[in-house]
């Protein structure tokens, strides 16, 4: 099964409950990559982890979304058409 990176965030008051963290640790081959007072960064198969989090009160789960450095510079997407057919020119379509 494919493994993905998820962020689990505790929505209750104060720090995340250690008992809940233990439930995640006990989950098959889930690996806690990093943690903070209210979050866990977890690598795991999606379904078992989502099922567990839905059963835990006051937690939210999301994919570890990637944010890019914003940029407004224009960019070329393809080489000039006269060169696009050459063997070394990669296709982007």
């Amino acid at each position, binding site marked *: 099964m494919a493994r993905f*990176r998820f*962020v689990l*965030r505790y*929505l209750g008051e104060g720090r995340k409950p250690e008992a809940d963290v233990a439930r995640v640790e006990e989950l098959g081959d889930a690996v806690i*990559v*990093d943690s*903070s*007072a*209210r*979050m866990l*960064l977890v690598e795991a198969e999606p379904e078992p982890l989502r099922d567990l989090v839905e059963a835990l009160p006051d937690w*939210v*789960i*999301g*994919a*570890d*979304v*990637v*944010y*890019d*450095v*914003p*940029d*407004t*510079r*224009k*960019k*070329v*997407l*393809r*080489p*000039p*058409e*006269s*060169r*696009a057919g*050459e063997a*070394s*020119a*990669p296709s*982007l379509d």
Partner: protein
Amino acid sequence: MASTPSTEYVLLPPQGLRARGTANADARAFLEDAEGTGARGMSLDGHHVPMRVVDSLGADGAKLVELSPDAALAVRALRPDLRLVPVVYYTPAVARREEVESPMATAGRRASASANITLQVVSKKGGRPIANAFVVAFVDYKKRTGAQGVTGDDGKVSLALGSASIKLQRLYVYPVDAHWSIIKKSITVKTGTELTLTPLDLGYTDGVRHFYGNADLGVGKGVTVGVLDTGVTAHPDLVIAGGANTVPGENRNDFGDNGRAHGTHVAGIVAARGTPPEGLRGVAPGVTLRAYRVFAKGQGSASSFAIAKAIDVAIADKCDLINMSLSTRQPDPVLKAAVEDARAAGSVCLVASGNNDRSPVNFPARESMAIAVSAIGRKGTFPSSAAATDEVAAPFGKDKKDFIALFSNVGPEIDLTGPGVAIMSTVPGSYGEISGTSMACPAVTGAAARALTPSLLKMKRNAKRSEAIVKAVLGSAKSLGFDPPFEGHGLPDPE
């Protein structure tokens, strides 16, 4: 006067779908009042707000309402403790083509030498070669075909354009620092063509200085601003009080710029303390500036875990305002929760709307508890040869020199607007000019700091405090004459 068409929104309590508990008593009372209004509308702080309740999840629950854009703005300003979210209708998920650059188009190294054209970028001041400038040559701008590359130490870049001489529709040069970017249209280039860049004049009136001038050094004193970004490097114009690096696996204390210069530029717009023309002055140079690096060393991407963790650290460090010049098109429930936690703890997140050319507002700016910022530009605040001239487009404001930047995302979630076209600011070891909602956001953050009073800052750090901050900031805004989806309440605390 013609009536403005209404849009459907969901009106929600601060958290969850129902207002429960003593902390949500005000929100519950409001939702219970709204339950019985039907199409009559409501009175908010003495203002009549036309609003039709279409559906409800019960007396204390979320409401589906119809509001005009102006009425939505009024609700957001008068009841910042409630979430007002436009109804989103999902369409089938069609995979978006990623804008992956062609390795050939980027480097040009695979093409034969005869097909390459070598250009040289030099400074107008003494003809000095300019290294590390990003040169983008479009043979066909609409199709985005052409070649691009970065200049070496000799200022030269070799581009695989397939001919010894070629007419380009457009040519852009983006230097790393010290010079204005340029655009040239319908230019014929061949090996040896020289491209000359004009040095930045730090005494020049760019967009930030036009709208906010050069503030006294004490302006913003008492306010703590956190900049979540690529980190902030020490600079003669900046005083960095502290910060943290929240990238998994990196040194927590290394919150210097990660090599992209973005965070240092953003920080300077908020709080640079230089004096033109030797240095630059930010919008609120008196604030206490803290830097939180969420982008990994040398990398152009950050994870939601690092960003959410940085928000938590900024809350713990008692940041009043948290600047987030970053965005994604993908919903992120984790960051949404972190932004809401900040609001509950008396801190307010100000977020760039995104640079996808008038697309809908990105996440997390579109979250109701964030302050979403679009970008305006002003003709005459950058040279006529600058690449930023591309961003001039309708709509124009009451003053026809003001325009909404073409790159700026817009929509009903926009709360405020700020100058974001061709903005000069600090970069590691120098100064640079960059455009983006990333630049508009810190200008608004600086202006927000100017609008906060000492008595407001003394309030207990809770949701009431952040509501008071939002009211003060939105209340300081002046419309520039754009419709609400473009400017929200307008430009905060202008001179």
